[in-house]
């Protein structure tokens, strides 16, 4: 039988994905390679004179390690954690309420839109709003004073705790809606059969949440944790605007990207490149974890069991051998 020439549609596929790869190459890959290259150079602008580029090897990396970079990494982590914990807790709670058909929440759609709204506001505008609201003579302080809650205006912007809580509150407000919607989708993906079966067996809401919902949405939960972590690593706009780029007080709200921005402002491409490479490595590791989670190699959910089975088999064989001897 003659081999019939088949019509290949594959080339159209390549043509359609070509624009992405071209723009990725120009706008992402080349700058990425260039950043890594520059990180090995001493290259900055001193007033109007350009210094470099001179090859300095790993000097920039060493210098960064001896600078306050790790302190800023700690700041970033703190800001992220105290924002993320309330965010995920509230989001879980809301998601399970909204997804629960029996609760019969009226106007659920309206609430979903409303909790998502803070995310639509520009982060910088939001930060400026908070800056005004929580200034020492601001509206929040005057309300507290008039209600007699406090006797003296609270200096929100003057203490590390105050500024950090404000940043965390803002991040929480902006992102809990987003998490809620995502978790809700996950919860609604749980087969109703399981829930119904559990309920017939007399399972209450509390148990349903902890023994059915939570385990079933674990992949999505981990995913949102990692994505939020990567987002937190890049935290910039809110603390930058709130503290006017200074990370006040005492640089306790200076995040890694604000630190990067400081180097870019000084046109210090070498140092900024080295810092970016550090961030790239950390993000890369986190991305790899996400990849591992989403690329499910245990589709039937029986992998662990099979492994245990194998082990048992092995041991049985061993035993038999021993006995045979």
């Amino acid at each position, binding site marked *: 039988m003659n081999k019939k020439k088949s019509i290949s549609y594959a080339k159209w596929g390549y043509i359609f994905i070509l624009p992405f790869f071209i723009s990725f190459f120009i706008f992402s890959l080349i700058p990425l390679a260039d950043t890594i290259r520059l990180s090995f150079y001493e290259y900055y602008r001193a007033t*109007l004179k350009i210094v470099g580029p001179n090859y300095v090897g790993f000097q920039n990396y060493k210098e960064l390690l001896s*600078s306050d970079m790790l302190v800023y990494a700690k700041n970033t982590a703190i800001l992220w954690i105290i924002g993320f914990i309330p965010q995920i807790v509230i989001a879980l709670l809301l998601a399970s309420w909204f997804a629960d058909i029996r609760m019969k929440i009226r106007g659920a759609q309206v609430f979903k839109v409303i909790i998502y709204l803070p995310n639509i506001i520009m982060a910088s505008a939001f930060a400026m709003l908070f800056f005004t609201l929580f200034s020492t003579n601001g509206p929040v302080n005057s309300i507290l004073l008039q209600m007699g809650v406090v006797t003296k205006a609270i200096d929100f912007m003057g203490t590390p705790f105050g500024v950090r809580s404000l940043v965390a509150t803002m991040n929480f407000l902006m992102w809990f809606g987003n998490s809620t919607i995502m978790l809700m989708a996950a919860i609604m993906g749980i087969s109703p059969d399981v829930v119904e079966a559990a309920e017939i067996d007399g399972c209450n809401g509390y148990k349903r949440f902890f023994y059915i919902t939570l385990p079933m949405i674990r992949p999505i939960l981990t995913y949102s944790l990692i994505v939020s972590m990567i987002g937190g690593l890049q935290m910039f706009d809110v603390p930058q605007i709130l503290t006017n780029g200074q990370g006040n007080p005492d640089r306790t709200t200076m995040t890694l990207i604000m630190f990067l921005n400081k180097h870019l402002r000084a046109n210090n491409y070498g140092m900024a490149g080295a810092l970016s490479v550090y961030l790239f490595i950390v993000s890369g590791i986190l991305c790899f974890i996400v990849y591992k989670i989403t690329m499910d190699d245990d589709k039937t959910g029986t992998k662990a069991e099979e492994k245990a089975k194998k082990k048992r088999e092995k041991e049985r064989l061993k035993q038999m051998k021993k006995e045979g001897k």
Partner: protein
Amino acid sequence: MKRRILSALLTVSMVASMLVGCGSAAAPAADAAAPATEEAKADDAAPAADAAASDEGKVINIYCWNDEFRTRVEAIYDKVVETNEDGTVTTLTDGTEIHWVVNPNQDGVYQQKLDEALMNQATAAADDKVDIFLSEADYVYKYTDAEADVAIPLTDLGIDPDTDLANQYSFTKVTASDQNGVQRGSTWQCCPGVLVYRRDIAKEVFGTDDPTEVGEKLKDWATMKNTAEELKAAGYYVLASYADTFRLYGNSIANPWVSPGETSIKVDPQIMDWISSSKEWLDAGYFDPAVKGQWNDDWNKDMGSASKVFAFLFPAWGIDFVVKPNWDGAEGSWGVTNPPSSYNWGGSYVHACAGSDNLGYAKDIILAMTANEDNLIKISKDYSDFTNNQAAMQKAASDDSFSSDFLGGQNPFTYFSPVAEGIQMAPLSAYDQGCVELIQSSFSDYFQGQVDFEKAKENFETGIKERYPDITEVVWP
């Protein structure tokens, strides 16, 4: 996330452009008028410029940080025909177009954009080259530097500073000169600082609101401290913030922050004095503890009628531009008197840029804006600038028609002029803006008790090395 960062940057620049009027040069409280003596001179200059203009490029690019310079050029430059609606292009009589390239001053954005353009000056097309640019007193030195050679010496333009700019205040000429004393820029404004006080508080505490008697109570730091104690007993603060007094100390430093050819920052003893007295005064309760630095909401509110703050230290522009919009009480509640020491604050310098193809116009505009006495008086009248002309300003000081209703009928020029004459310009360096900004923000934490003195010093060192990678060490007195 990228989008968020982008939008953040856009907002930063938007906000910065809103605020830019504050920090930079600006619109003052003066209503000057004085007879013209330099008409002939300006007329002489004009034909020469015309001749040069004929073979010049058709586009003049002017780099600046707000519309202040444009509005003044429109008002006084006789070759201006019209400006388009969004204020980006001004057409001149011979069809030449001025293109205004505006970037906000705050946080070094303007300098960054200008630096980029200057780097590309050699390769840019003739109509894209920078022809004229402005700089502020805080970083003028960076652009007048002889080695960088980006601002053309005035003599090369055909302007003789000794005759053409004879009436300018000499410190403005020194400020615009490079390390060899060659003047490379010129300004139309002069920003002598004064002390603006609340008349009602003065009456209540001192029993008088007369500027001379109040001035006597604030004539030097020691006297002012006693006055502060007196005000404190009555429940008032003498000033709003420690940042308010910074220019008074910062302008009397003996050596520049960075000496030419060096890569170390030397902190002047005057700055240390500012730090120790600020800490002392804040702890003693002479400043409003709620205010951190300047240009923020708390600071602005302290200019309102509900505030307990007695006085502010401002140059001419501050009264009209900052105090007035924030004041919500009766007209005539403020007065002007002498500051505890002479100082100046701000000022926009005009430079012709090396490589420009419009040098004739550059000369013409610089002369019209900064040398022509008629024009300067018009600027003083229309925009209440304290302009850079000794003769005219001296006349204004003794002319009662310059009195201001906002200041209770007082003529502020009587206080501006002597201060302007007493200004000794501090030695400048190209690093001034960063040093001034960072020393204030680093020690802010120290004043408020967040960090100890050593940690504040350390934070300043970290910050300054980040901002200027070529700085290797900071030397403390």
